[in-house]
């Protein structure tokens, strides 16, 4: 665990028996010709190509001010869906998510405007977050420096590598202090130097009495950044709590991952480099 900030007992996110169902179009079914479509409509049949995917099945938990919550689990466990539901982007099928304020989701797929230069993306992103032109002027250089994309800031974002793109997106979103920040694999593509910077920024956001949710396949990152962890499997919680290292180790056991050797006293990874923010 990186930071042991004093936590308040003021909840910022309450997830109450949340169910999320996706309706997926074009998931196979008929042969997809005009004739089959016509027969379907004439016969008043439901589209076979609509499949319902029950991605989240009754989750309940509470997150408090100052929490950094790691969400771990296999692919398709519902981690990203959970973040989207917290952000209010996916309406719940049943149950509810209550938040103190709007949550900002920062995902790896969240390209802003591909055709436009990084510069314009910074300005537009900040404007969209409701910053004034003056604030943007003050923060612009800081965002560019933080992202580390350098000269590429003058080129369209479609020319960026995936790492550069997500670094810039993180820098834009982190420019504003969010009370609830949801990070979906956004840091996975960054290089070592950027990780150190982003960990520092996440800790800073936490200290500003915010709540951070982090989805990551890189368990070391969760270990370094989070004070709580939620382990999801097929849309339900397997285990959650403050014993980050214990839960991660059990998750590694269950998913057949490579065992981590730990120092018996500090419980830190022996082979791993020192966490920068410890």
């Amino acid at each position, binding site marked *: 665990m990186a930071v042991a900030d004093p936590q308040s007992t003021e909840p910022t996110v309450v997830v109450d028996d949340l169910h999320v169902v996706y309706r997926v179009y074009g998931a196979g079914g008929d042969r997809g010709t005009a004739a089959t479509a016509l027969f379907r409509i004439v016969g008043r049949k439901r589209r076979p190509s609509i499949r319902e995917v029950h991605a989240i099945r009754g989750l309940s938990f509470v997150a408090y001010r100052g929490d950094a919550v790691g969400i771990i689990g296999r692919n398709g466990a519902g981690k990203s869906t959970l973040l989207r539901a917290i952000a209010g982007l996916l309406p719940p099928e049943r149950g509810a998510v209550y938040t103190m304020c709007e949550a900002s989701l920062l995902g790896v797929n969240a390209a802003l405007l591909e055709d436009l230069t990084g510069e314009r993306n910074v300005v537009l992103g900040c404007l969209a977050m409701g910053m004034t032109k003056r604030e943007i002027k003050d923060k612009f250089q800081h965002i560019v420096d933080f992202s580390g994309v350098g000269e590429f800031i003058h080129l369209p974002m479609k020319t960026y590598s995936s790492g550069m793109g997500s670094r810039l997106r993180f820098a834009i979103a982190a420019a504003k202090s969010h009370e609830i920040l949801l990070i979906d694999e956004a840091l996975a593509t960054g290089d070592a130097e950027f990780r150190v910077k982003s960990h520092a920024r996440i800790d800073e956001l936490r200290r500003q009495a915010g709540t951070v949710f982090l989805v990551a396949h890189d368990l070391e990152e969760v270990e370094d950044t989070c004070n709580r962890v939620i382990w999801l499997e097929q849309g339900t919680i397997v285990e959650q*709590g403050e014993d980050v290292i*214990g839960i991660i180790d059990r998750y590694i056991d269950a998913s057949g991952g490579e065992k981590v050797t730990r120092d018996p006293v500090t419980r830190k990874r022996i082979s791993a480099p020192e966490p920068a923010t410890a």
Partner: protein
Amino acid sequence: MRSTRLKSPGQLLETGAVPAAAQHGAAADVPGDSLAALAAQHGLKPSAERPRLGLYLRELARRWNFIMGFATARNIAMYTEAKLGQLWQILAPLLNAGVYFLIFGLLIKGVSRGVPDYLVFLVTGVFVFSFTQRTFISTSKVITDSLPLIRALQFPRASLPLAYVMIELQQMLLSLVVLFGLVLARGEPLTWNWLLVIPATLLLIMFNAGIGLFAARTGARVNDFAQLLPFLMRTWLYVSGVIYSVQQVVVQHAQNYGWATTLLQLNPAAIYITLFRNSLLASQRASAFGAQPYNAANCYAWAGTGKPAGVSTKAWDTATKAVSNGTPHGHSLSQYGSAYCHPTFVSTHLWQLGAGWAVVALLLGFWFFWRKEVNYGRG
């Protein structure tokens, strides 16, 4: 298993076999009440809740710079790959008008009948209508196009369709500059009436913003809408009097299909096109219904119908001859005959109706879009 689990939906965390580490954790010490009560106690709001209308409007107003910045950036990106670049913003409407003129002005003579100075009549119609048409088509895709942006950042989603309206407005303003040049080149006098283009444009912006918001929600929710839209737009184009004179159809069918001709005139696109034409073109003002004292023979001879009851044969012969000979010169009955017809309710209340459509479209469109605000990131 050492875990905190859920018993059943709505139930709280099981406390039986909680590991010591998890027990002091923030997750485990939920008060005895339900989670919903806990949320209510601390003033937490459902995340997928629609913001109140007043708050939403305030947030939207704060995004004015974003709307304009987004529009400008999109406009710049739109033509960057083309060699002629931004020149296309002027070339596209010109070519568009050129095609219509080639077909309906030169090849098919019938539609230009009964209209003074058909070229500028047509070009005004094409430019005004294409503002509405382009807005409708582009805003129907705005949510799908901007999904990454919507999923990344929180902002009032109505900013996006409004930004697209601003993109099309910039295009429209350039078209207007071309139009002014063309109208002056055709020898139209520059009069104070031209200033009426400003309120007409403002009303059209309001109307287009309304239908843009409508199209944005519909296009985001119903994927079939995008397939249907080209047909809808073409039908709308043909009933809006872009290419032919609605006045002529009105006189021809007023007797048997009075209600249909009223609907045809009430069509908002037809109203805005007429407002622009009347503001810019003296020939249109001179040929508007009721511009001359009523004369049944002149009116019906111009419309090309049979002799109406109550008109003497002599007067009818004079009128039909004048129409076929193109006399009197400079104000021929074949082109300006509509001026002798009775004014209709619509032709005398154009501004009121234009304003009415603008307000209704904007309010309804905004309300319609706002209702589904939380669903737009769903994809």
